């Protein structure tokens, strides 16, 4: 007890004049903050994680949650977080972990890039009136087309095209595994992408039978743990993604705690119930870029060359050279996950300090692939901290073919980004396997929310393109001339290959 108690992270107060004693807060809080005692709602603020489930369910707005009403003495270097982490590690001697993405106070490059619009000299396009081509094909494109002209207007294509994924919008949902999130959460997103004509990833948790009806819109993942991977799984997916790394924790493996491996998760992952699901840091059959090619080809061979194969890497210092290697491995797309990418749990030191921002990574990879004349060999999918349609648009202008969203899709289903995913107590039924909590997430309603979000962003993307006088996503991709940097230094402008505002 040398260190003793620390200030409350969140203080919960109930306005007893407003409270009608309905008890919804008691029922809804999975962290045991509330109890009904002596005809009053009593609270234990120490348990609160600020997931706001109680606020959302309170019919009388009687609940107030304040963040650190009594804080540590202010200090610009020894911040409350720094001190708190030292206390925890001094007491435990353990690696500090947390949920959700990067919490480091880094400037967001997207917020220092502005988009262009037409004025006078070239007309903008009204998407209400004109068709906007947002359809995106993910996969290899031929270097050139070999065409034979027959009699009349008859044209024959001799070039053999390889399978691509057809997206009606360049917005997909990234890989969040069954285990990390609930089946209802996966189901809701699967329904949404099926209706939209987009895709979502399974993560490294196998494909639950309940998702088979949506398999044509699902990308199955194969990661270092090879959980749930068999030939049936590979054949069901619309595409296969090899996960090498993840933006939230580049260079390290994954670890689903035994508590989250319930009977159903165990069945889908094909491991015993209650055992830890440990994904090693590397794939132990990939120790080189040549080995990666071997795995890419083995997946193509196993599925008779019918499935595009993606390779996902975390954005790290040499991301461009690595992506160029991937482009030559036979892969059809490279997924780059920036350092703001989310996770159910990651060591905080990795989450906050390893990797680079997605904006710089997209630009570097696109530039490198174009310089080497192999941009057509792979599509670029960008992920990690895509928050709204402007981020999507800027990512595409920097060179991405499409984006993966993750956290944004969860937020669309109610997630408050409390960062407590690893406790298996998610009050929203998203990051939990407890049946009573999972049942809170209605898959039909949640799927409409996710669909609405992607639909709205797609509309905004079309509007932004129209304003810039662009009517096809092909003309937006890599169109860095339509970006300007605002308060970015010269070296950053060089990496992004964009001009500053006013230039």
């Amino acid at each position, binding site marked *: 007890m040398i260190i003793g108690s620390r200030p409350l992270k969140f203080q919960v107060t109930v306005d007893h004049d407003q409270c009608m004693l309905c008890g919804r807060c008691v029922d809804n809080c999975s962290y045991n903050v509330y109890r009904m005692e002596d005809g009053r709602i009593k609270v234990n603020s120490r348990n609160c994680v600020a997931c706001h489930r109680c606020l959302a369910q309170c019919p009388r707005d009687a609940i107030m949650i304040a963040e650190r009403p009594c804080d540590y003495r202010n200090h610009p270097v020894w911040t409350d977080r720094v001190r708190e982490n030292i206390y925890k*590690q001094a007491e435990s001697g353990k690696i500090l972990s947390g949920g959700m993405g990067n919490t480091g106070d880094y400037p967001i490059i997207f917020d220092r890039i502005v988009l262009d619009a037409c004025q006078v000299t070239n007309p903008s396009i009204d998407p209400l009136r004109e068709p906007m081509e947002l359809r995106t094909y993910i996969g290899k494109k031929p270097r050139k087309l070999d065409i034979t002209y027959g009699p009349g207007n008859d044209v024959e294509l001799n070039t053999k095209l390889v399978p691509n994924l057809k997206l009606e919008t360049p917005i997909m949902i990234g890989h969040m595994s069954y285990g990390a999130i609930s089946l209802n959460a996966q189901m809701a997103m699967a329904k949404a992408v099926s209706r939209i004509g987009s895709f979502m990833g399974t993560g490294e948790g196998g494909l639950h039978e309940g998702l088979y009806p949506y398999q044509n819109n699902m990308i199955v993942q194969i990661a270092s743990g090879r959980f749930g991977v*068999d*030939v049936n799984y590979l054949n069901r997916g619309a595409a296969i993604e090899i996960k090498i790394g993840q933006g939230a924790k580049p260079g390290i493996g994954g670890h689903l705690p035994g508590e989250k491996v319930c009977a159903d998760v165990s069945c889908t992952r094909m491991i015993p119930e209650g*055992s830890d699901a440990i994904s090693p840091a590397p794939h132990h059959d990939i120790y080189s870029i040549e080995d990666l090619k071997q795995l890419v080809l083995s997946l193509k061979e*196993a599925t008779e060359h019918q499935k595009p194969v993606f390779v996902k890497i975390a954005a790290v210092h040499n991301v461009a050279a690595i992506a160029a290697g991937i482009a030559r491995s036979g892969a059809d797309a490279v997924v780059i996950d920036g350092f703001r990418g989310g996770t159910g749990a990651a060591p905080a030191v990795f989450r906050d300090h390893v990797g680079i921002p997605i904006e710089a990574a997209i630009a570097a990879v696109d530039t490198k692939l174009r310089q080497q004349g192999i941009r057509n060999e792979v599509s670029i999918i960008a992920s990690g901290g895509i928050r709204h349609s402007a981020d999507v648009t800027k990512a595409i202008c920097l060179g991405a073919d499409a984006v993966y969203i993750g956290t944004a899709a969860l937020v669309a289903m109610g997630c408050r980004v409390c960062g407590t995913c690893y406790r298996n107590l998610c009050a929203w039924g998203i990051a939990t396997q407890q049946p009573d909590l999972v049942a809170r997430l209605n898959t039909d309603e949640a799927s409409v929310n996710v669909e609405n979000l992607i639909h709205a962003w797609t509309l905004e993307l079309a509007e932004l393109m129209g304003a810039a006088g662009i009517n096809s996503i092909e003309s937006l991709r890599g169109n860095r001339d339509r970006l300007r940097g605002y308060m970015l230094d010269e070296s950053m402008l060089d990496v992004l290959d964009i001009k500053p505002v006013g230039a």
Partner: protein
Amino acid sequence: MSVVEIEAQGMHYTPLNKLIRKAVADGASEIILKHVMGQRFIGDGLTGNVRITVEGVPGGDLGMFMKGPTIIVKGNADHAPGNTMDEGLIVIHGSSGDATAHSMRGGRVYVRDDIGYRGGIHMKQYMEKKPVLVIGGNARAFLGEFMAGGLIVLLRLDQKEPEPFAEMSLASGIHGGAIYIRGPVEKWTLGIGAAAREATVEDLSVITPYVQEFAEQFGLNPAEILSSMFTRIAPVSARPFASKYIWE
């Protein structure tokens, strides 16, 4: 019973696998691949009950993702035979490379001679699916690393009285399954989370059917093999990393 012969000389692996798949679809019960020379991915993702004989040396990832077939290799194999294999049997009349039986989920891989590094790494089991790797000769470092289930049996038959096993990082991070090594094991070879002890008679009954099948494949005497002293390596805990983290 129909036997199909395929001449593999100079053929790329994709057309070769196509011919194999076609033969299986046409109802072949046995396929003989002649003059195999380094073709990778033979039997990759193949399902069914066919028996394939490989005459020659196959390339890497033999029988990867395979579900059901039997592959008999009349020679050595390259790296990772039985990679992420699901069901079936691979018998190698020779040695194989690194990552043999990598991430294997079910079925059996029998290697007459030696294997390279990382044998049986991250093998795992579920319900009735229990992968088995039996090696007649020696194995290099990282045997059974991250093992989550299944069985590895290392016989070292080239030594009548085997020297103590002396390859590093044996079973490091093991959290399921078991490894049996004929003869003693140097204590320093054990990786994090692995514990070793002399195998009991009861333990040996677990490996007996596989040793018998292995011996049958290669014309050996199983009773003689099983009369030796074995060391059993198993996880200390099913959750080796449970106490590594604290939460923000």
